[in-house]
């Protein structure tokens, strides 16, 4: 078995076990906590043997498996507007269909942990789930990063809430809080995070051994779902080995790497493959993306720290990409363009997620007009298949790379 297969096989096995445990939750009596990916506090939940369920990940899986369209309609039938987030409607649709996900049945929540990081819709989403399920809702209020780093007051506020959340978890699960265990879990998180950063940095080489957008979204799944476990660390060790060997052989995701791009915004899940193809045919490889940072900006030096577990969870939670203010996000894009020697910036603006999309046109304005970075902005949606127009996207993507290629030709 090659390294490549080993990594894939492990991911498949680990995620398979995870979904199995969700299916078994009813029988095993394990308590179930729903939570969001950005700024999640899964380390804390693991200390109480609680099963984490990520509605966003369920929604994106439904998108890839082409179930989203029907589920979204179900939610619209009970009154959800066509203008609100497709992820939320997808999740409500799942609830209305007895939670039959592409990977089997999902358990009901015993506790809703709304880690409100970078997305106000999270609060509305879990308020709705609390309404429909009657489950307890804990809103973990995570202050927006208004300055470059969190203030002391910000940290104190989040840590105080984490302590309150630990009490709620102990009460829900019947498991007492063991701070030593939290240290062990956070050290596993740290190990995986370090390896992940090395993975991301591998894209600095030419050609890049992997696509830091279209492939990274799969590579980051274990970090978002299994963080704080041994298996997760092992997965990233294997992945890194594989990428290093690809690097040595000069192999990348496209036969010939012609354009290196930075991608901003989430992918259109229901049309993921065809969207990727539109880029691949031009020899485009993403070398960095912001979407791969929604689960944490580890490459900016924000890690879990077993020496200060609660404080590091608080810092981590405040440093998800969408919880950064727009000035910080813009600087990050500039950094990626430079650090990964990219030729262009691609912005995929999605209607569902205002947290991502409002401000992107302003990025485009600065980067394209003032700083001369070739920038393409295209619009569709991350969850709603109705907002994807293949012909239109193709036309724009072709025109963009046509002109980039032509300029390169003329420019010598």
């Amino acid at each position: 078995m090659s390294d490549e297969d080993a990594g894939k096989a492990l991911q498949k096995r680990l995620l398979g076990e995870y979904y199995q445990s969700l299916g078994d939750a009813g029988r095993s009596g394990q308590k179930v906590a729903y939570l969001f990916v950005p700024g999640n506090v899964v380390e804390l939940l693991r200390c109480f043997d609680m099963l984490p369920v990520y509605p966003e990940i369920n929604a994106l899986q439904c998108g890839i498996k082409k179930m989203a369209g029907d589920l979204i309609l179900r939610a619209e039938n009970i009154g959800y507007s066509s203008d609100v987030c497709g992820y939320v409607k997808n999740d409500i649709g799942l609830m209305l269909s007895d939670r039959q996900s592409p990977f089997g049945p999902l358990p009901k929540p015993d506790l809703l942990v709304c880690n409100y990081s970078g997305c106000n819709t999270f609060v509305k989403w879990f308020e709705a789930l609390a309404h429909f399920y009657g489950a307890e809702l804990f809103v973990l209020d995570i202050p927006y990063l208004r300055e470059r780093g969190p203030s002391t007051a910000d940290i104190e506020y989040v840590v105080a809430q984490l302590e309150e959340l630990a009490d709620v978890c102990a009460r829900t699960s019947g498991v007492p809080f063991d701070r030593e265990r939290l240290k062990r879990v956070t050290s596993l998180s740290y190990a995986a995070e370090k390896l992940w950063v090395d993975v991301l940095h591998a894209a600095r080489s030419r050609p890049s051994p992997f696509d830091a957008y279209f492939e990274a979204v799969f590579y980051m799944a274990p970090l978002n779902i299994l963080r704080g476990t041994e298996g997760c660390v092992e997965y990233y060790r294997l992945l890194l080995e594989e990428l290093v060997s690809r690097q040595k052989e000069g192999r990348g995701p496209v036969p010939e790497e012609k354009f290196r791009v930075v991608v901003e915004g989430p992918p259109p899940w229901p049309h993921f493959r065809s969207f990727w193809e539109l880029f691949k045919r031009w020899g485009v490889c993403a070398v960095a993306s912001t979407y791969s940072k929604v689960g944490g900006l580890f490459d900016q030096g924000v890690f879990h720290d077993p020496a200060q577990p609660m404080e590091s969870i608080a810092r981590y939670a405040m440093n998800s990409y969408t919880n950064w203010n727009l000035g910080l996000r813009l600087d990050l894009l500039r950094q990626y363009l430079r650090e990964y020697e990219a030729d262009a910036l691609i912005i995929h603006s999605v209607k569902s997620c205002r947290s991502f999309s409002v401000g992107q046109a302003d990025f485009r304005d600065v980067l394209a007009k003032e700083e001369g970075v070739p920038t393409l902005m295209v619009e569709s949606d991350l969850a709603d298949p109705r907002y994807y127009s293949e012909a239109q996207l193709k036309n724009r993507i072709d025109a963009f790379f046509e002109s980039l290629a032509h300029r390169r030709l003329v420019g010598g």
Partner: protein
Amino acid sequence: MISAGIDLGAGTTKVLLYDADLAALGTVSVRTRPDLEATATEALLAACDAAGVRREDIAYVATTGYGRYQIPERDLQITEVTCHARGARHLFPDTRCVLDVGAQSSRAMRVDDRGRVIRFRMNDRCAAGAGKFLERVARALEIPLEELPAVALRSTDPQPISSICAVLAESEVINHISQGKPVEDILMGAHLSIADRVLALLRQVGADGEVALTGGLARNPAMVKALELRLGRPLHHSDHSPFAGALGAALLGQQRLAKRNAGGGA
């Protein structure tokens, strides 16, 4: 006592006369002209002629439709939603859902056992879910409007039309033409795309129970078929369906008349 219901729509004006013995006397439908008042008067007189009654015999005039405020001689104006619901309930007593598909807009209503509107939704911002869309498709396919249903009903393999905008949907139609798809399949696709939009409105108000179709497109058998196909069950419709608005207005006129006679007259 005779009441008149006048439904002043953007395309056509419908008049229905109703007498106290609870029976419809006659109906008239004319094209709406820019002078709404003249259109209404003309249609009302034509209805009188058809029913063999005099204008003075009409004790109550209730107006509905977008021009309902433009008729000075009205006793009362009532919205088309309320009227269509009442009219549909009268025509099909067990109906709980009413779909009114017109030229410019579509509406879905949930009604109680007396025909009172409980919930309703309208599509009035985008023409993709209304009869106007069919007119444009007909133009693109160069088929006379009146032949649309017959042609569409010959379809064996309806072509999907997914665009949200009526104009862009038109280019999907053109695309299908250029790919050599049969005209009837494209047309049925257009009917189904309207059906999808209208039924989305219906689901938002609750689609269970019997469904009645009113409005101009109720007379288009291809539209009926498309709706039934997507709904998965038959729906009520009749030749009177386009007059449901006028009927509802006339019925509510009777209600007011009865009240007036019981109260003020005595």
